[in-house]
């Protein structure tokens, strides 16, 4: 059966609230590698969550998936960036020996443009040069964790027609061993913000290369943030999965023939005691979708 997982939150208060939920519900754990590290003068050292998450995995017997933000898979080849990524891979290699990640994905985009940390994945121009750049970064990542891939973005803007993005993703993943992490909340957010049909976008993606699906909720931005008073859908992982995203799961699931996990994302600091019941319900609904699909 396809496992249903949960992202381990790097936050003591959230871990306390989740308590038994983390022992009872997830079949698999996902971690963002950067939440295991602290940077001291350019070097990545382990932090307290490193040992904690490792012990949680050992105690429960659950396997780990790595899903990062900061490798900057669309980033260029300046000397500083080459050095930064080498540091990153060295830390990943150390952790791969311990966590034995089944696969490693990062967001399609740039998070360290010109060596600066935006922390927010930014869209790439949809060009052959950009696709080649991502393919090279995936080759680098695969030297540490053999199975690697990218997540479809949740960009608030794109450099062109958003419905050209699936073709761009296909060109990035032209090596059939590369994988797609299909984030359905991202598809919903982009479709809402950029005004396209989510199912049309979904149908054009290489769904046979999907290894993992992400499910999450989000919220709309405060209308006071933009001069025109418009709200945009934010990929905040801070609320229940909306009906539109459940609907996209129904559409996508039968087409993802190589799917190996579904993971529920929820941002640390956004979970109250009263949310744990909802998270259990969401995990169980995901599991029933998997069972229904397998039948």
């Amino acid at each position, binding site marked *: 059966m396809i496992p249903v997982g949960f992202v381990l939150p790097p936050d003591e208060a959230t871990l306390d609230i989740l308590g038994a939920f983390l022992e009872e519900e997830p079949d698999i754990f996902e971690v963002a590698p*950067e939440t295991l590290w*602290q*940077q001291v003068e350019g070097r990545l050292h382990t932090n307290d969550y490193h040992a904690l998450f490792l012990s949680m995995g050992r105690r429960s017997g659950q396997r780990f998936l790595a899903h990062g933000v*900061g490798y900057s898979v*669309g*980033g*260029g080849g*300046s000397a500083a960036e080459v050095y930064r990524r080498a540091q990153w891979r060295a830390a990943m290699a150390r952790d791969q020996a311990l966590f034995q990640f089944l696969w490693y994905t990062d967001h399609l985009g*740039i998070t360290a*443009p*010109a*060596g*600066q*940390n*935006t*922390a*927010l994945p*930014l869209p*790439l*121009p*949809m*060009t052959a*040069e*950009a696709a080649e*750049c991502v393919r090279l970064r995936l080759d680098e990542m695969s030297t540490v964790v053999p199975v690697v891939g990218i997540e479809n973005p949740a*960009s*608030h*803007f*794109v*450099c*062109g*027609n958003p419905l050209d993005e699936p073709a761009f993703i296909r060109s990035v993943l032209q090596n059939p061993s590369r994988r797609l992490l299909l984030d359905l909340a991202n598809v919903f957010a982009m479709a809402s*913000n*950029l005004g396209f049909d989510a199912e049309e976008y979904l149908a054009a993606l290489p769904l046979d290369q999907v290894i993992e699906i992400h499910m999450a909720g989000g919220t709309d*931005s405060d209308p006071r*943030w*933009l*001069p*025109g008073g*418009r709200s*945009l859908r*934010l990929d905040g992982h801070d609320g229940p999965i909306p009906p539109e995203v459940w609907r996209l799961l129904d559409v996508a699931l039968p087409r993802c023939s190589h799917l190996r996990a579904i993971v529920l994302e929820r941002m640390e600091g956004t979970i109250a005691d009263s949310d744990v019941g909802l998270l259990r319900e969401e995990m169980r609904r995901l599991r029933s979708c998997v069972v229904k699909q397998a039948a």
Partner: protein
Amino acid sequence: MMDDYENILVHVLRARDPQGALASAIKALDDQHPLRAALAAINTDGLRMSALLVARLRFERLLRGSKEYRADWQLDPNSAAARFSAYHEASPLLAFSPKEEAKLFHAWEFVTA
């Protein structure tokens, strides 16, 4: 081309007026530059939202990393926000952790005081 794109992106996203900064960046490219059309296709609301989120993530790093700034923010949010805005516009995004952000912020304040 990717180097040009990255440089334009960080400049525009840290600008006080991202839309104006993008328009200036496009104007500065020669007519045949392959990025011209790609940059011209960027929607304004999405660009502004991305700029806001980059600033917000940096602000949250600073709040987590500096007890001193956190105290200032509680005491006088308007003044603390203005200091952060000036810092954000003037300083490249070099910190990856809250501690580093705090260190860079206080160093910047020391130098500009």
